[in-house]
């Protein structure tokens, strides 16, 4: 067993020092190499700066460097002796919903930054709302620039109290939230414990990232696996050099996929959805040999006892805990495109490995992320626009086996795609993963 892998996201608003914090993590874990530092120093001198601008490490596109802003989610990689990290660094101000949703969709943890001088601001509430809706399992509130408030415990406790209250109201369990006072600039509590915060007895940011469990909540859920591809070696070209080699496998028929939730083992009863036939798993194969048990996250090839017609788009599920099969879906939509939602639009919906046609009804609510309330759109001309989050009912051409996003992320999520351009219009979450009160 080697090192494990934690995927996490960072979010914060413009001036809270996120680039500096990311730079600090990379620098202090020795993930920034000499030629990168030199390149940044050269570029900083060219721009007439006295000190190296660490954000240049992160901003990869010409337009970003020219405008001094971060446009797009950037992925960063670093490691320590115990763990590897994939960091989705999401910019705060431009298209924050689109970027935060993208970065958070694969994250097991999110680091949310606030400036100690400002505390919890609107942007913090918006980010926390999106992270809660995406069901990111763990949250870190990094209270940055503590050096600028004189390492004052009272100030920090007040921010912590306000934020934990917010997190609780958004549905985060208390033990999923960790508040850490840091100074990214000076380095307090990022990698090294600070002597200037004796009243803080929690972990450093890196210490916390290294010690949180990485086994996602999906492993404990009922088994789900979208079928990606049917593997049949006899499909090999008869004239190819491989024909003889595959001959012995003439009857092999395996269903390839990545386990989306739960575990699967030979002998398990499974159902093939949406059709509904029940059968038994005989093998959980990998190229390295069969597994006694496959867990969520692993790509496998499953063989079944009965000869059933199964193809790409089907979903294998635990027989004793099945999702509902429906062609009417109540969903939360995060609108990601400049083209707004048109009521009764005919779009494409990609769920697991199946793409089907869908008609999206008129949006019912828009979520006001400042007040954390639902604003009714019924009988108004308003619709969902870029960066809006709202609710609508969808009717699909084919029935889909869906779970509530709050229960199982992989089978409760989907994309809405614009047929003429092929662009992704919205991220969809089945049900309402945020339980909010209607606006007064």
């Amino acid at each position: 067993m080697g090192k494990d892998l934690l995927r996490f996201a960072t979010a914060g608003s413009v001036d809270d020092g996120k680039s500096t914090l990311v730079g600090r993590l990379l620098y202090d874990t020795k993930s920034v190499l000499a030629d990168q530092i030199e390149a940044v120093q050269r570029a900083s001198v060219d721009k007439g700066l006295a000190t190296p601008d660490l954000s240049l490490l992160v901003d990869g596109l010409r337009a970003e460097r020219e405008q001094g802003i971060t446009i797009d989610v950037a992925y960063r990689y670093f490691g320590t002796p115990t763990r590897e990290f994939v960091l989705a660094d999401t910019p705060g101000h431009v298209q924050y919903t689109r970027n935060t949703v993208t970065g958070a969709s694969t994250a097991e943890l999110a680091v949310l930054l606030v400036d100690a001088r400002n505390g919890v601001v609107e942007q913090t509430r918006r980010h926390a709302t999106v992270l809660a809706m995406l069901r990111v399992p763990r949250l870190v509130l990094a209270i940055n620039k503590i050096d600028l408030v004189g390492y004052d415990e009272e100030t920090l406790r007040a921010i912590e109290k306000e934020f934990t209250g917010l997190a609780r109201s958004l549905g985060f369990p208390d033990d999923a939230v960790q508040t850490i006072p840091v100074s990214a600039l000076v380095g307090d509590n990022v990698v090294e414990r600070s002597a200037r915060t004796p009243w803080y007895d929690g972990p450093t940011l890196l210490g916390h990232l290294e010690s949180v469990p990485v086994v996602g909540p999906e492993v404990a859920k009922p088994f789900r696996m979208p079928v990606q591809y049917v593997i049949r070696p006899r499909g090999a070209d008869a004239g190819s050099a491989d024909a003889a080699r595959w001959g012995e496998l003439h009857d092999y028929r395996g269903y390839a996929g990545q386990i989306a939730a739960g575990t699967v083992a030979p002998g398990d009863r499974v159902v093939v959805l949406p059709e509904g036939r029940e059968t038994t798993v005989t093998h959980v194969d990998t190229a390295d040999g069969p597994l006694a048990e496959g867990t969520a996250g692993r790509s496998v090839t499953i063989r079944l006892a009965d000869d059933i017609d199964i193809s790409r788009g089907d979903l294998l599920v635990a027989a004793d805990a099945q999702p509902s099969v429906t062609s009417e879906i109540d969903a939360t939509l995060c609108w990601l495109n400049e083209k707004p939602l048109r009521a009764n639009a005919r779009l494409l919906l990609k769920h697991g490995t199946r793409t089907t046609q869908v008609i999206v009804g008129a949006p019912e609510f828009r979520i006001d992320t400042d007040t954390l309330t639902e604003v009714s759109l019924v009988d108004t001309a308003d619709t969902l626009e870029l960066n809006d989050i709202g609710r609508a009912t969808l009717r699909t051409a084919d029935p889909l086996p869906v779970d509530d996003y709050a229960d199982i992320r992989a089978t409760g999520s989907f994309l809405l795609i614009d047929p003429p351009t092929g662009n992704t219009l919205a991220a969809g979450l089945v049900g309402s993963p945020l339980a909010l009160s209607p606006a007064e």
Partner: protein
Amino acid sequence: MTELARAPLNSSVTTIERATLDALDALESESIHIFREVAGEFDRPVILFSGGKDSTLLVHLAVKAFAPAPVPFPLLHVDTGHNFDEVIDFRDSIVERLGLRLEVAKVQDYIDDGRLVERADGTRNPLQTQPLLDAIVEHRFDAVFGGGRRDEERARAKERIMSLRDAFGRWDPRKQRPELWNLYNGRHAPGEHVRVFPISNWTELDVWRYIQREQIELPSIYYAHQREVFRRDGMWLTEGPWGGPRGTESLEKKSVRYRTVGDGSCTGAVESTATSLDEIIAEVTASRLTERGATRADDRLSEAAMEDRKREGYF
């Protein structure tokens, strides 16, 4: 390359019990998922294969994704003509062993008939774009797997795993589709294609650790060997038809190895005595330079060299 494809897949094989995924397992499963998505959704995918370590890793993962069936894609090599013999021999042996079809698009053909002109600096990496795009059109490839990794270069850090290219093969970083969960949107119009990067999330060290774990065979030039080299722009280059040594440059015999393998004119060797994977991993871990910074002249051309090449359709 291990004899994966030959491994019998029946219950007599010792059952592996690895309940949780370590970092390499997680990366492997993600890459396999990407290969299978493309196989399920595209008509004519192709794997870019040069015989270098990243593309050899790609082919290894593709073999694992479809075992015990053969890899359902052909391979495409964009050949600069400035090759290392060891790498071409290795390329051909892999192709033969796996029984795959290899297409070769040759930069030399383009120079011979005047469609491309040799650059003053003799570097041919930037000249690969046109033959690549022509091969994509000629064979009507709709998905092109590349071995690009986000840790290589900062423009690549913003690249999607599935990335749309227009009819001219161009990448527009401002118009990238958001990529959510593991739901990839590869929809494209006729004439457009999608570049796919299954090892986006791997680091150089991950690649080496995995090569060690899986006992993947590589061309010999990745290991330390004695070679006549000359110094240019801070890199050790090998003698060849691309010119050199010239002027005050002189050949010296050094113990070197390659960290990346590309066009011979701009791929430098590093001084090394690492002859085993253990030693290479120790060296990579201790290195203070990125692999591109250490060994690729083409990325030093300007601050946005990679972004500009990618926009034009480079891999």
